């Protein structure tokens, strides 16, 4: 167990397995990380699906009720215009006044439409941004776990760092972390078992001059070294 290196905090509270290695000497310096809006859309399918659903739903509700509002307002305006026309039909001098009132009410109705469209578009934009952030809190942990999965695929079982504060799926991530640690610990324990067996057998095989076993132990040592690297 003592031969397996323990995880070391190397930078910004992150563990060695998570910190990308710097280019060795001659490479170009790494560009500072810039947070982009596209980074918030980590799982487009998952996030856009929910965003579109809520946005379209809000749009439909706002559109339907907005149309009802306009309809009611327009009905009231039309009624007032008709009454005014009936009242002023005998007096030609009041025609200008009637036209003025009608134009004023039509302008108010139009302003109402613009106001509602503006509020609706603003609502959709704000809602979309908020939903991107909200879904990012689910997509972020999934993305992080996916990266760990990719490492596991390559046989690399480094340390797993915690999620950011505010991220969702903490329970799921906890399960993953537990599994990852269990697999890593087991493999480390296997390495120790294999290593101690190899050390014990090598002394015997070398003393007895058994070349076949020595070759097998050499291969086992190689395997153990590679595995140790993977478990860093």
């Amino acid at each position, binding site marked *: 167990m003592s031969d397996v290196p323990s995880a070391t905090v190397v930078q910004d509270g992150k563990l060695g397995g998570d910190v990308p290695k710097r280019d060795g000497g001659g490479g170009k310096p790494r560009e500072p990380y810039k947070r982009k809006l596209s980074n918030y859309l980590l799982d487009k399918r998952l996030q856009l699906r929910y965003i579109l659903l809520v946005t379209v739903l*809000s749009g439909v509700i706002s559109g339907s009720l907005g149309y009802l509002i306009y309809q009611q307002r327009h009905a009231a305006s039309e009624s007032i215009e008709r009454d005014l026309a009936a009242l002023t039909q005998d007096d030609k001098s009041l025609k200008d006044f009637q036209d003025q009132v009608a134009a004023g009410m039509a302008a108010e109705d139009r302003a109402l439409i613009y106001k509602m469209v503006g509020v609706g578009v603003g609502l959709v934009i704000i809602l979309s941004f908020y939903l991107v952030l909200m879904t990012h809190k689910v997509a972020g942990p*999934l993305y992080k776990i996916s990266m760990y999965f990719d490492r*596991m695929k390559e046989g690399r079982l480094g340390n797993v760092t915690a999620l950011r504060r505010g991220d969702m799926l903490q329970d799921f991530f906890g399960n993953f972390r537990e599994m990852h640690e269990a697999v890593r610990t087991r493999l480390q324990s296997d390495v120790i078992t294999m290593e101690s067996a190899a050390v014990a057998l090598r002394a015997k095989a070398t003393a007895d001059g058994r070349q076949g076993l020595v070759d097998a132990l050499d291969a086992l040592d190689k395997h153990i070294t590679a595995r140790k690297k993977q478990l860093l």
Partner: protein
Amino acid sequence: MAGAKPQYKRSWKNLLLNKRYQLRFTLFMVGVSAVLMTGLGVWVMKEANEATTVAMARVRGEACPKIPEVIEVPGTTDEPAVPMNIEDAPPAAPEAPAEPPTDEKAAPVKDEKAAPAKDDKARDKAPAADEAAEDKPAEPKEAKPELSKVDPKHVAANNGQADLLAVKALWCTDAECKPETAAPLLIKVKKCDDYVKDKLANAEAVDALRKTSIPVVKCEGGGEPYSVADAEPERHATVQLEETSMTITPTLPTDFADRIVAHHTCEMRQAGSINALEQGRLRILWVLIGTGLLLMLGLALYGIKMTHKVAGPLFKVSLYFAKMRDGRLDKVYNLRKGDQLVDFYEHFKSAHAGVVTMEKDDLARIKATIEAADAAGLGDHASIAELRTLLARKEKSLE
């Protein structure tokens, strides 16, 4: 293993696999919709209330035909006025001269406005009538007043107005008032109390009130009501009428009944329209509430189902995590059709495969070492025994 495996039952509880995630997203969706529905619904109702108020005002503003006031004897018609004064000679006598029944005596009840008009007409017609009288003798048929075609019931009702006219004449000449049968009489005049007290001391004025069943007299602008019952005791006068001297000629407009019917029909139509508008307003309210509630319910169910398609794969992966933690690397099955996080699941599958590969590599290397040790005659070595145990565990984990 003799017992049958219990059949899996899908229940609603199983849809909520990850309560925190699923409820958060569902509640957000429902919350946004609820806020929008409530906010815009209130706005809709505000506009609907305004539109209804405008429409109601419009309905109320439509002028209905007025109920013809019986106290106004029509001065524009050529029909003779009702001779209410029983002392007047009946104009229906065939012997009577062919005098037009527009004489002031013939219509003592007509109002002041009608009187001059009638006088003018009478003056205009008088020369013609005189000329006609000079030219040819009066024909009894023409002089005879026409019988009214009005329903006698209406005539009776009309006659009932005479009492009101009397009240008007006695009470409302020096003061402003509008007498109505069986309703308090409201007086508007300076020094109203003195005026009312004076009048109540007048037996004739009190009698007029009693005949019209007016219970109290009030001064406009407040003040103490004066009870007619407490006024001067009723005087009982015996009046004898000679039946032969009573001739009542009804002069109600011929369309009196039609106008009343038209008035009430119009009022009922207006009331119906107003009621319909109010019902329409309420309908909008109930439709909004109903739609909102249905939307919330539908969204809640849909939200849980939708998020289940994410929570389901996560739940499945969690089960595999538990197995891997316990050292069991079983076969990984595919997701159900329609589930989300397919890419994520593929990543997990490859990770699982990576761990399996590592185990297999270990297995192969351990096997080779054991075989070499066996060949070297060191199969009984304690380290080889440890390796055999490790090999068995790894083989079991891959089963």
